[in-house]
């Protein structure tokens, strides 16, 4: 089995919780799109964590793939009039190819050097998006496209779009769990724990790291495509390294060594931002401070607090 009984139980429980969110959210003063946003950031962060928590590689450039697919989705709908069922896969494929190419160029670098390179390459995409006015709308962003129907399913209403994203969300949870359960996932963890030992065992470390980079970027792309559809808008900040930083922040706050950690982080991030921003426009100050506290004192994140005796 690619999923254990426990996996199915947990994923089922989480899915059940999210499935009833459209009923719960309006009752607690929130709204359905908040739930949709949590799932989208959840897809981004869960995929991202294959690389960060799973393989032990920090990237600050995944917003590039997130934004690339977001813009691509908008442009494919707007300029090429592609139906959504084609636009989304093509956009995600774009993110996949970009990651394969950039990964090939930089995967040989280690640690902080690698992180700096991912920022730099990510910013390259940011500048292209913010300056290629005729194609992307420049700093004002890309508008004029609207989500319509997906294979006959009308995803214009907020509730319908929620369940549309829910489908992708569920698939992401199942896929990431299956990947980390597989021998490939085990190999990634082995590389994280001890690169040299993995090399001695004859594992082609760079190939696996490149694989993790590309797979995680593909999920960034999927999340970006869905996010552009949620907002009916794509803008340069989607590709900014600070957006990459948000994904890192979610993984760390939730707990990057726990399977659901990034999802918990995504939920907390979206909720906190929404709550704090109703009181003050300066939500980044408390959020940044919370992040600093986590990095210093709770390095295993929220889900890590509940783990016992499973020290690293």
């Amino acid at each position, binding site marked *: 089995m690619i999923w254990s009984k426990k996996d199915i139980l947990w994923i089922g429980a989480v899915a059940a919780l999210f499935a009833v969110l459209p009923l719960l959210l309006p009752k607690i003063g929130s709204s359905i799109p908040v739930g949709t946003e949590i799932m989208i950031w959840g897809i981004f962060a869960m995929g991202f964590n294959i690389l960060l928590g799973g393989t032990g590689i*920090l990237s*600050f450039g995944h917003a590039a793939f997130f934004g690339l697919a977001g813009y691509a989705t908008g442009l494919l709908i707007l300029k090429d009039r592609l139906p959504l069922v084609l636009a989304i896969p093509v956009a995600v494929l774009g993110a996949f190819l970009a990651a394969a190419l950039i990964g090939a*160029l*930089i995967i*040989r*670098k*280690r*640690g*902080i*050097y690698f*992180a*700096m*390179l991912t*920022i*730099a*390459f990510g*910013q*390259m995409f940011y*500048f*292209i998006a913010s*300056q290629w006015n005729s194609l992307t709308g420049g700093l004002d962003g890309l508008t004029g496209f609207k989500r319509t129907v997906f294979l006959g399913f009308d995803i214009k209403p907020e509730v319908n779009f929620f369940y549309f994203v829910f489908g992708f969300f569920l698939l992401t949870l199942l896929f990431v769990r299956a990947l980390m359960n597989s021998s490939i996932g085990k190999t990634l963890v082995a590389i994280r724990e001890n690169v040299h030992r993995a090399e001695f065992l004859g594992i082609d470390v760079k190939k696996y790291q490149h694989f993790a980079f590309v797979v995680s970027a593909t999920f960034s792309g999927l999340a970006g495509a869905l996010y552009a559809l949620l907002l009916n808008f794509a803008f340069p900040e989607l590709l900014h390294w*600070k957006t990459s*930083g948000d994904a*890192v*922040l979610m993984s*760390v706050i939730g707990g990057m060594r726990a399977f659901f950690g990034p999802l918990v982080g995504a939920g907390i991030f979206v909720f906190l931002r929404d709550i704090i921003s109703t009181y003050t426009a*300066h939500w*980044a*100050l*408390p*959020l*940044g*401070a919370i*992040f*600093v506290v986590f*990095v*210093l004192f709770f*390095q295993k994140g929220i889900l890590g607090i509940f783990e016992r005796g499973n020290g690293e």
Partner: protein
Amino acid sequence: MELSLLLSQLFNGIATGMLYVLMAMGLTIIMGTMGVVNFSHGVLFTFGAYFAFTIAAKAGFWAALVAAPFVVGLIGMVLERGLVSRVYGKDPLYGLLLTFGLAMALEEVIRIGWGTTGLPFSPPDFLSGFIDLKIMFYPAFRLAVLGFILLLIAALWFFLERTTTGKIVRAGIQDSVMVGILGVNTKALFTGVFGLGTFLAGLAGVLSAPMSGIMPTMGDNVIMPSFIVIILGGIGSFWGSVTGGLMLGIIVSLCIQFVPAVAELSMYLVMALVLLVRPRGLFGEEGLFE
């Protein structure tokens, strides 16, 4: 093609490049010694400019030029003692994450303290206006900045190469554990290095304020080029930072003039090219962070 136009862009490039050099120097000695990528470097640069704005309003430009970088350096030392020093010896990832959170919070502090809109900042009277260089007229302040940073780089070089403290710093970049074993107080060394690095960031902020204006996000525009300078020059290398900074400044300025569409992009293209040809950077030492 006018020669004066080319020359003035070349000068602009060198002036911007010099600012990148100051930023990259600070980043690279911190990175080399403590293994921490200081993400808050850009925000501290911005703090330099804002402190200068506040101090200059009360005590004039010169007081601001001297005091603002010191205040920033002091803040840097407090941050190092209180927060950054807690992640030494851990996975380098944590230093990066910590300073990322710091940068996020500190940028909001600037917005709260000084507002979100840009502020004007003019150079002192006798440095405003243009100087006749025979072949062209060039802004006096830019020229002064150019000369000032050149002197500063020379002073830094002297400090690192010719003084005992400087030698300790360089030894720390090579192997800080060994330096500690040899009896040097590494705790003080680390705080000092962080202070020096952030001082340079603050100074760069003050100097760029009259040239590009003051905004909460102004640090964003220099942190990326500074990262690229380090990638180009190689981590921990003095001459790498100088060469990389000048190269980047000149290339970007020339592109702004002649192919404006790719001006911002050009630095990333240069970076990609250098990575392909010489992955460890132009002056990078083998094995260091590779």
